[in-house]
């Protein structure tokens, strides 16, 4: 595993990506220390003021400091991306392992269910789920997670199908291991490379999707400081106060760029064939 880090260090793109992500992560962790103002503190006499020395990114339509909202918003955005990938990753990988190892009717059932989920355009399915659960950031995360599960299931399943016929699995069987032992101690670890690659890109996609849901009003609700929501709040004042939308959108772009760069680098190291 140290070898992966050493090879990764040579990839400048990946390092840049890691840097961007780390900056945002630190921003999220130390938000109370970094943000100069309370993100929800309104100041109605200074609406939509442009960036100044007191307000690095200006103020939004309720006079709140945009910079502070961006800093606190990083928490929402990061959490959304990471939680989505965690939920989808755990559930999807588990389903893929079972479907690939046991095959048969159970495997078929699982993969057909994945087909049903994939039959819906993913954003539409997310909208549908939020419509059922009612708008909110948490529900948006659930919705995006559900749409991400099939890609994990499919990938892990195809890995499992190959791995379960390998010699070291037979060797483990000869030693008297149970199916559970083989699945979790041999097949899953050897699938981790694919899972990790899926996850770094998955975080990027999840961030965009949850921000998109927030943008159309189905995700985070006011007055939460969430980057997608801030974007839509700035939409109406694009002519007079574009800085509201610019900064929030730029933050999303940089964070997603970071994950994409790092993910690409990681993929090149873990599995160059996928290039």
């Amino acid at each position: 595993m140290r070898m992966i880090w050493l090879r990764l260090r040579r990839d400048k793109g990946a390092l840049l990506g890691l840097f961007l992500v780390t900056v945002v992560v630190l921003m999220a962790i130390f938000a109370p220390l970094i943000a100069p103002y309370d993100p929800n503190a309104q100041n109605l006499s200074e609406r939509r003021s442009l960036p100044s020395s007191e307000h690095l990114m200006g103020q939004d339509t309720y006079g709140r400091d945009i910079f502070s909202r961006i800093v606190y918003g990083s928490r929402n955005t990061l959490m959304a991306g990471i939680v989505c990938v965690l939920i989808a990753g755990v559930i999807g990988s588990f389903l893929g392992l079972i479907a690939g190892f046991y095959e048969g009717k159970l495997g078929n059932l699982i993969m057909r269910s994945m087909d049903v989920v994939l039959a819906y355009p993913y954003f539409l399915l997310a909208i549908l789920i939020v419509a059922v659960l009612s708008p909110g950031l948490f529900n948006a995360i659930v919705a995006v997670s559900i749409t991400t599960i099939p890609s994990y299931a499919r990938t892990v399943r195809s890995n499992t199908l190959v791995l379960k016929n390998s010699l070291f699995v037979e060797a483990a069987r000869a030693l008297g291991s149970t199916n559970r032992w083989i699945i979790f101690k041999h097949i899953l670890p050897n699938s981790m490379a694919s899972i990790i690659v899926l996850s770094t890109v998955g975080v990027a996609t999840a961030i965009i999707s949850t921000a998109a849901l927030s943008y159309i009003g189905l995700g985070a609700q006011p007055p939460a400081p969430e980057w997608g929501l801030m974007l839509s709040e700035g939409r109406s004042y694009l002519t007079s106060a574009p800085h509201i939308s610019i900064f929030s959108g730029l933050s999303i772009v940089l964070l997603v760029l970071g994950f994409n760069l790092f993910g690409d680098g990681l993929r090149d190291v873990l599995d160059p064939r996928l290039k």
Partner: protein
Amino acid sequence: MTKPLLEVYNLVKHFQISKEAAVFAVDDVSFTINQGETLGLVGESGCGKTTIGRAILRLIPPNSGQVVLGGTDVLALSPEELIQMRKRMQIIFQDPFSSLDPRKNIMKLISEPMLIHQLGGKKEIAEKTYKLMDLVGLTADLSGRFPHELDGGRCQRIGIARALALKPEFIVCDEPVSALDVSIQAQILNLLQDLQQEMNLTYLFISHNLAVVKHISSRIIVMYLGKIMEIAEKDELFDNPLHPYTQALLSAIPVPTLDDKRERIFLSGDVPTPVNPPPGCRFVKRCRFAQAECFAETPELTDRGNGHFVACSQLSKGFGGCAQ
């Protein structure tokens, strides 16, 4: 010493490759192995020797037959009982790299069998692992290494350590040195022999290399296309090979000296496929003594004295034109 540890009766394993065609990898094979002895199993690729090893251990389910290890019918065990049984019978694989999980280091690899069967706490198992490493000739500082960092010889030692961890009585050695450099082969063979003495092991040693088999076995079985052609004590087999196939095999062993040239017996005809074998002797298409009845009836193994068994209808008839 002469108590049979492993008894195999009428073992059959065929693979159905299509509706009409089946490969009879193991076709009605019977033999016994005594406690503490090494039974060598030789034959060409495709004669079924690898399948036999796996079928005996139930890594591949046999189609019919009986396998009795120390009085217990292996094929009749339930899955849970089978897992317990595995402690008594183990296997060493041909490919030293592929048989090891590439993501596990030596410590984890060798402790795995003990962890699976929960033979002690973490500390205990670690100690046992170091002892095993010492037993197979691996230095303790290697415990953190991974298979891809090591050469074939060391990886095979890991395989041996894993097979020994559960203190088995019987080990199937499936071409354990075929993939190794010649210089390392001797080391591993010697290791196997030393271990056999120390731990009173019984081996089924499978190989296509007659010289290796000669070195390590006490008795030898010669197989061809899923059937046994000849069984004999090692010296008896090499001094007095009776079956035409065995004779051809032995004539092909390279001789190191210049003047002692061996008369090479060449086998004519193509190697037949083991698919849907016709009746009659399996060797009939390449045998230089084949007669009409060889095509019609499958010869049984007949006792020629001294524990020497041969499956050849010409020999049984005592006709000339064979061996002698």
